[in-house]
């Protein structure tokens, strides 16, 4: 989230799209409700009528997989009707930047597409630079090569009739959404967008998010109170686990994972440290060397020296994609021998779980750490497999629950909050911290004693968390914050980190979270800040440097006067020469630095040349879709990798004419282990079900409550039919297309058991992130006889 949960109350209009916040983040509705009590309008855009829709002023049905068409249509309307905030665009975005003359777009493809490699050569996706290397701009936004005019041209293809034919959203509702949400472009008004996995779990997921962000920029809604682009994250610490880089492509604090080309630290830093010729650009990532060297010092301590490039060679180098789907494909192919699962349950939660379970059978060993016996840990004991044929050695380790250990988690609004141990874990259960500590120490011992392949990174690993049986979690938290290695004191903030090896920090973004003043995440001061917009600056701590609303310099004009004085985030006191309110995005006086400090050009990108699949969002159909792409002959995202071969069948619309989507419900959580073992929650939702329209049920002779088979090219499941008005067929290009919806929480362990919806989903992911396309695929349904 650029903003945070409480800030939703400051919005004049709330658009919930690709999220079912009322069901999956119910307490967010505390703040949605507060905004509505003050007159805010709630718009909900979703393929199905949910508990969120039930509270909305406008519910706009949208066919799953058509978000880009929808938002592009809304943006087109906003531009053509002058609802956008021109000052904001010029001051804060690259709308005025001139783009390379050779940049073009045709037949659904941007210039530079290589059909064979399914990749773009992005050499023309560039700004025009002046003689100083600074991007050329036209602040009138009239130059036909400026980003704004190129965007306008791109969007002009998305008129409301066209959009309605793609999305299935009735035109009058499109118009209503465009008008009402577009009204937040007025000065002093704010609109917020709340989104979640309904947005991201598509082959165009990243561009879906981008389209929302661009809409927010057009309306001047980023950096302000009651605005922002807000990802509602689904697991208690999925923000923190991402920040700590439990992902192949990043290191802690979003530093890039070294690639094979980055053979030396020097090469790495040259590759990944952006440069800017613009003196007004803060270009924050210019500090990359300080953060990287401090990370290496945190990892390898005294063994990271100037002489050995701070142990840079110890870091593994990647040369391809190692994301979730790729991992399970490699496992299925027998290339992965061992797997360690820390509280994740891919046998329910992974896409195409039949294949992912088959892949588990190929492992030599599996370690599963969890509170419960999961479907993953006991994959060898399922009805359809013979354990006597499965070689995998399986270790199931009992873990402590949240109230049985001490440590911090980071919520969706980036608040790092400390938790205390209330009781001991049951039986032999242990905290993950204890398990990791024991394992690391044992590995260090083994490699020290016996040596082995490249033993140094392990033997030299900086690992000392106190003499007690349970590692001292405060020592870990302090290591994450970082030390001044000369004085031995905790670093007060990332501004003090250095690239010469005299500081350490396990995660620069968390610098200032645990300082000589104490554990900031444990703070409980209930007072609000001077601007009274619900920042609660001394309650817990948030990254970066306790800034509660990021990009907040954009909430002011170039003199530091807030566009919305009644709910200002920051404002410049000219007499005192200081900012007040939230922690500003850098303390420089107004007008001296551009507001989007993380971008080398200092401006938010309407033209996003960093993406794999194009600088503007373009509608493509999901991998499995019942219709042809109306926008171009390019049917699916041209950069998406489609896996073929065993157990990767793709369904066609003849055999599988019905759109299917998966989702979560309030009463269950993710892959189910935390709720399907809980009698109070199982009581509320004991069985797997499939939701469908009355018209589909009628045509298939299915009655409400019947057992129904749902089939896709990957597999088949059965579930109870919920026949409801909440589901409606979509009218696409004049024809009706049905959809069904399935919760994905169920599996064959726990008190509540049922088929996993992910038996049905394909192994295909977003072109940028490889997030699986769980949200739109094709199926057929029939009554079970």
């Amino acid at each position, binding site marked *: 989230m650029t903003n945070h949960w409480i800030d939703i109350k400051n919005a004049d209009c709330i658009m919930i799209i690709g999220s079912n916040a*009322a*069901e999956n983040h*119910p*307490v967010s*509705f*505390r703040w949605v*409700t507060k905004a509505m009590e003050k007159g805010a309008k709630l718009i909900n855009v979703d393929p199905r*009528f949910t*508990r*969120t*829709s*039930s*509270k909305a002023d406008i519910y706009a049905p949208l066919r799953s997989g058509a978000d880009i068409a929808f938002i592009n249509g809304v943006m087109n309307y906003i531009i053509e009707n002058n609802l956008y905030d021109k000052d904001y665009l010029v001051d804060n975005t690259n709308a005025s930047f001139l783009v390379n003359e050779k940049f073009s777009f045709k037949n659904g493809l941007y210039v530079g597409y290589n059909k064979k490699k399914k990749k773009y050569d992005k050499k023309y996706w560039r700004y025009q630079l002046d003689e100083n290397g600074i991007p050329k701009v036209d602040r009138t936004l009239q130059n036909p090569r400026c980003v704004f005019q190129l965007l306008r041209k791109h969007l002009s293809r998305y008129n409301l009739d066209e959009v309605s034919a793609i999305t299935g959203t009735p035109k009058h509702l499109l118009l209503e959404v465009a008008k009402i949400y577009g009204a937040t472009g007025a000065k002093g008004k704010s609109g917020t967008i709340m989104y979640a996995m309904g947005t991201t779990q598509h082959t165009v997921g990243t561009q879906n998010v981008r389209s929302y962000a661009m809409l927010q920029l057009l309306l001047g809604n980023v950096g302000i109170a009651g605005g922002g682009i807000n990802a509602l994250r689904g697991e208690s610490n999925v923000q923190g686990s991402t920040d700590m880089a439990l992902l192949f492509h990043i290191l802690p604090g979003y530093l890039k994972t070294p690639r094979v080309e980055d053979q030396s630290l020097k090469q790495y830093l040259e590759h990944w440290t952006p440069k800017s010729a613009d003196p007004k650009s803060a270009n924050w990532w210019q500090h990359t060397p300080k953060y990287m060297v401090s990370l290496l010092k945190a990892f390898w301590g005294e063994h990271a020296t100037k002489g050995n490039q701070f142990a840079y060679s110890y870091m593994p180098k990647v040369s391809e994609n190692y994301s979730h789907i790729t991992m399970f494909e490699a496992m299925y192919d027998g290339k992965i021998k061992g797997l360690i699962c820390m509280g994740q349950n891919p046998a329910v939660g992974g896409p195409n779980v039949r294949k992912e379970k088959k892949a588990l059978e190929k492992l030599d060993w599996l370690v599963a750490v969890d509170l419960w016996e999961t479907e993953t840990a006991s994959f060898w004991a399922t009805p359809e497999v013979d354990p006597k044929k499965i070689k995998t050695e399986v270790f199931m380790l009992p873990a402590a629950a949240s109230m049985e250990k001490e440590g911090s988690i980071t919520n969706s609004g980036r608040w790092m909050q400390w938790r205390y141990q209330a009781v001991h874990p049951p039986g032999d259960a242990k905290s993950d911290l204890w398990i990791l500590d024991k394992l690391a120490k044992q590995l260090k011992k083994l490699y020290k004693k016996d040596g082995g392949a490249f033993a140094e990174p392990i033997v030299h690993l900086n690992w000392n968390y106190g003499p007690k049986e349970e590692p001292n979690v405060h020592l870990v938290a302090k290591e994450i914050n970082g030390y001044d290695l000369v004085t031995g004191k905790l670093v007060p903030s990332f501004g003090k980190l250095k690239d010469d090896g005299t500081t350490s920090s396990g995660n620069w973004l968390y610098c200032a979270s645990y300082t000589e003043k104490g554990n900031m995440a444990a703070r409980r001061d209930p007072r609000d800040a001077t601007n009274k917009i619900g920042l609660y600056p001394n309650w817990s701590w948030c990254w970066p440097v306790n800034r509660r609303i990021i990009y907040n310099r954009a909430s002011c004009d170039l003199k530091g006067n807030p566009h919305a004085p009644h709910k200002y985030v920051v404002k410049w006191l000219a007499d005192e020469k200081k900012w007040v309110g939230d922690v500003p995005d850098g303390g420089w006086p107004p007008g001296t630095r551009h507001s989007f400090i993380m971008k080398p050009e200092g401006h938010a990108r309407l033209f996003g040349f960093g993406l794999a699949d194009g600088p503007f969002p373009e509608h493509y159909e999901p991998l499995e879709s019942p219709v042809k792409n109306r926008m171009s002959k390019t049917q699916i995202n041209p950069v998406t990798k489609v896996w073929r071969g065993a157990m990767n069948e793709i369904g066609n619309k003849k055999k599988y004419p019905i759109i299917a989507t998966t989702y979560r419900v*309030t*009463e269950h959580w993710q892959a189910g282990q935390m709720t399907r073992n*809980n*009698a*109070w*929650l*199982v*009581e*509320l*939702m*004991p*069985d797997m*079900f499939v*939701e469908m329209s009355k018209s589909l049920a009628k045509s298939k002779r299915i009655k*409400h*409550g019947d057992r129904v088979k749902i089939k896709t090219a990957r597999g088949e499941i059965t579930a*109870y039919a*919920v026949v*409801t*008005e*909440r589901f409606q067929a979509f009218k696409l290009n004049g024809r009706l297309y049905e959809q069904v919806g399935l919760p994905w929480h169920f599996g064959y362990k726990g008190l509540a058991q049922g088929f996993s919806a992910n038996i049905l989903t394909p192994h295909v992911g977003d072109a940028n992130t490889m997030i699986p396309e769980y949200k739109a695929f094709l199926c057929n349904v029939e009554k079970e006889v």
Partner: protein
Amino acid sequence: MAAKAILFDLDKCIGCRACQVACKAWNQLPGEETRFFAAAGGYQNPPSLSPKTYTLVKFYETTVGDKFRWMFRKHQCMQCVDPACVKACPVEPVKAMTHDKKLGVVYVNKELCIGCGACYEYCPFGIPRIDDKTEKATKCTFCYDRVSNGMEPACVKACPTDCLVYGDRDMILEMAHKAQKRLKAKGRNPQIYGERELGTGCSKIYVLPEPLGYFPDLPKKPKVSEDLGLFHEFLKPLGSLSISAAVIGLVIARVKEARQTEEVTEKVEA
């Protein structure tokens, strides 16, 4: 001390059922072994109140005018201002069905309850249940332990959107009327339920965003059965010593029988 009440502003309810679980958690009630419950649309569960379930959320899918609505209503004891269950309770001299008039709380004193079922029989909303195992009546206690200790009921505290509000009944009614106005301004056709029902009203006050007819399981005109007087007449001669669940069961049956005979007689006469 003023009588308390709970406001249920349905327009703000997101159907998350925090109230339902918070009730179980505070009262340490076990989960019920349920199965997919088709009759109520598929989301509501358990099917009805029980000794293990003092409150549950009901789901209503309906079309009002040209607008599809999905509404949610928390269902439980209405905590009547003049509770028929207390009148019906045959345990003397201290009633097992206890009425704290100051707080407006009606709860079962399980030490005194004989599980006769008279409270259920005469409840205008059909709320209390008899636990077969303990042979005691069960129902929402209005979290008497919490409210008598200055805390709000568990369900109210858990509610994320403040669709449930606890406070003095006067204040709650004022809030209800404000909510009604707000909804009217939004073009809805709201109705307050619980203010004047049964003459003196209840301590649970609903603001229904649409007319009562859209909530078919809420009695349109709840009333205390006329049999209640007859029941007490039949009880009187028996004396307090002979009060047991079995005897009360027989008396209730006898009252019903008598009433039927009466009705038949009336019909014949008519």
